[in-house]
C-alpha cells in the first residue's frame, strides 16, 4: 500500500496546493512506514514533486482530459488508487478537488473527511482534526473504512521540502463516454489578476470606503503586494464590487497568509469566512469595530488617510527588498 495524492496542475504547471499536499502526505507516510504516489493529469514536467517527498508519479497524458471534467478525473484517481492499493487518498481543497473528492470516495467505498487541518490526531483508530461550523470550531472525526479519503484545507500545513528519488510511470486509465456527461462550453477567467483562491495576500475592503469610486487605492495596494482584492458582503450586495469578491460565510472562504481588512467592521459571518487566514490586519476608524478583537495588528485611523501612505511605505519596502 501507499498514500495516493492527486497533484493538481493548470496549464502544465503544478498548483502550490499540490506541493502542500505532497508535503503533508510525506509526513503521514513516514509515520505509517509507507511511500507517496502522486497521480497527475497532463502536468508536463513532474520532477518538481521530488522536492516534496513524492516517491512515484503516475503520469496521465490524455487529450480527452484537456479540460477539467469531474467524473472523468475522479475515475482516473480511483483507478490510480486501486493500482497502487492505496489505503489513503489525499486531495486538496481547490474548487475542482472539492468537486472530485466525494465522487472518488463513493467509487472507492471510502470514508471521506473534508477540511482537514493538521496531521492525523491518531492513526489507529484513524482520527483527523477538521474545520467545522464555518471555522468557529474544530471537530475530530474518526474514519473507520479500509480506504480513506481526506481533503486537506488550503494553507493549513504549508510547504515542507523533503528530497526523494522520484520514479515516473505513464499511466493510461480507461475513461468511458459516461465520464463526459457534463461538458465544458466555455471558461471565463479574470486574467492578469491574482485570484482569491491562489493569493498569499488578500486586500479586502468594506462599506467604510463609502463608494465604488474609492476602490482605486485598494486595487493599487493589492498590486503593490501582489495580492488579490476582496470585499465584504454589504459591498457586493450594493453592487459596488462583483460577487466573486465577496468573502465570508456565504461568500468565498479565505485561507491566506495575510489578510488586510480596510473599513470592514467585522460581522461574525465575515470573520468566520476569513478566520483560517494566518495574519490579519485591520484598518478602521472605529476603535470599537469587532474586527479588532480577532486581528493580529490594528490601525485605528481613516482609510483615506492611512491607505495612500501605506501604499508608499510598501513600495519603498518592496524596492529595498529587490
Amino acid at each position, binding site marked *: 500500500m501507499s498514500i495516493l495524492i492527486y497533484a493538481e496542475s493548470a496549464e502544465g504547471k503544478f498548483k502550490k496546493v499540490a506541493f502542500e499536499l505532497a508535503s503533508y502526505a510525506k509526513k503521514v507516510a513516514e509515520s505509517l512506514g509507507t511511500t507517496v504516489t502522486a497521480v497527475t493529469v497532463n502536468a508536463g514536467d513532474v520532477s518538481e514533486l521530488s522536492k516534496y517527498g513524492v516517491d512515484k508519479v503516475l503520469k496521465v497524458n490524455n487529450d480527452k482530459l484537456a479540460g477539467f471534467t469531474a467524473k472523468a478525473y475522479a475515475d482516473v484517481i480511483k483507478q490510480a488508487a486501486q493500482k497502487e492499493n492505496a489505503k489513503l487518498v489525499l486531495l486538496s481543497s481547490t474548487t475542482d478537488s472539492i468537486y472530485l473528492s466525494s465522487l472518488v470516495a463513493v467509487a472507492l467505498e471510502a470514508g471521506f473527511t473534508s477540511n482537514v487541518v493538521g496531521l492525523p490526531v491518531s492513526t489507529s483508530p484513524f482520527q483527523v482534526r477538521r474545520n467545522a461550523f464555518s471555522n468557529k470550531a474544530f471537530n475530530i472525526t474518526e474514519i473507520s473504512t479500509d480506504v480513506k479519503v481526506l481533503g486537506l484545507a488550503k494553507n493549513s500545513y504549508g510547504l515542507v521540502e523533503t528530497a526523494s528519488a522520484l520514479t515516473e510511470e505513464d499511466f493510461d486509465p480507461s475513461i468511458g463516454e459516461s465520464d463526459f456527461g457534463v461538458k465544458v462550453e466555455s471558461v471565463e477567467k479574470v486574467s492578469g489578476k491574482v485570484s482569491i483562491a491562489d493569493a498569499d495576500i488578500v486586500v479586502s475592503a468594506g462599506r467604510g470606503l463609502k463608494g465604488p469610486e474609492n476602490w482605486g487605492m485598494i486595487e493599487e495596494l493589492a498590486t503593490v503586494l501582489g495580492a488579490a482584492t476582496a470585499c465584504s458582503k454589504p459591498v457586493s450586495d450594493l453592487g459596488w464590487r462583483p460577487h466573486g469578491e465577496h468573502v465570508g460565510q456565504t461568500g468565498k472562504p479565505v485561507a491566506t497568509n495575510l489578510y488586510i481588512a480596510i473599513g470592514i467592521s467585522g460581522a461574525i459571518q465575515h470573520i468566520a469566512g476569513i478566520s483560517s487566514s494566518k495574519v490579519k490586519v485591520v484598518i478602521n476608524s472605529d476603535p470599537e469595530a469587532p474586527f479588532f478583537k480577532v486581528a493580529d495588528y490594528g490601525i485605528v485611523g481613516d482609510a483615506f488617510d492611512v491607505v495612500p*501612505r501605506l501604499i508608499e511605505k510598501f513600495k519603498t519596502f518592496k524596492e529595498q527588498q529587490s
Partner: protein
Amino acid sequence: MKILVCISHVPDTTSKINFVNGDSEFDTNGVQYVINPNDEFGLTRAIWFQEQQGATVTVANVGGPETEPTLRKALAIGANEAIRVNANPTDGFFVATQLAEVIKNGGYDLVIAGKESLDYNGGMVPGMIAAILGNNFVNSCTAITVEGTAVKAVREIDGGKETVSTTLPLIIGGQKGLVEEKDLRIPNMRGIMTARSKALTIVEPVAAPVNTKAVKFEKPAAKSAVKLISPDNLDELIDLLHNEAKVI
C-alpha cells in the same frame, strides 16, 4: 419537471457555537435554526422553475422531528410538499444514501442541494448522491436553466467561472448566484397558513454503513490581543509584518 431540494437544518449564522457532554455534542441551547443558506438559494431557484416552467418542488431533509419547522418554512416559501427521513444525520455518506433512496422512489429530474452546510461544512452530500445514482453532477453551481432535458449551468471555479452543458437527471451543489440575496423570500402569512395543510411525509431510513464519526469538538484557542499601531507610524506595521509575522 420534478425537482427535489435537499434542505439542511442548521444553526443561524450568528449563533454562538458551544459544545456539551464532554465536547461530544453541539449545544443547541438557545440556538435558532434556519434553512442552510446554500440550500435556500437553491430552493428559491426551484420556486422560480415552479412559477415559470410548471415544475413541482419537493423538499427533503434527513433529521429528527425537531427539523420539521425548517421544512414547514420551505413549504411556506412555496415548495409543494416535504419529506423527512426520520434519522439522525450521522455522516455525509449516510445522508447521501437516504436522499438517493428518496430520489429513486420519487423519480426526480433535478436535485438541488447546497454545496455545503454551514454546520459540518462537509461539502460532500450532493457529489455522493450523484455518485450513488450515477447521475450528472455540477458542483458550486451559480446559475442553471433547463429546456426539456437540456441543461446549461455555470460553475464557479478558482478565479473565474465555467459554463457547462449537461442533461437531466442532474444533481447540483448550489450556492449564491442561483438567485441573489435580494430574491430570497420571507414567507408571508398566506404562505405560512397554506404550508400547514401541505403534505409532510415521514419515511424511515434505509440501512447504510457508518464510515465516519465525529468523536469530539474543540473551540479555537483564545487569541492574543490585537497589537495597535499608530497611523503615524506605518513603518512599524511594515516591520512587524516582515520580521515578526514574516508574511511579506
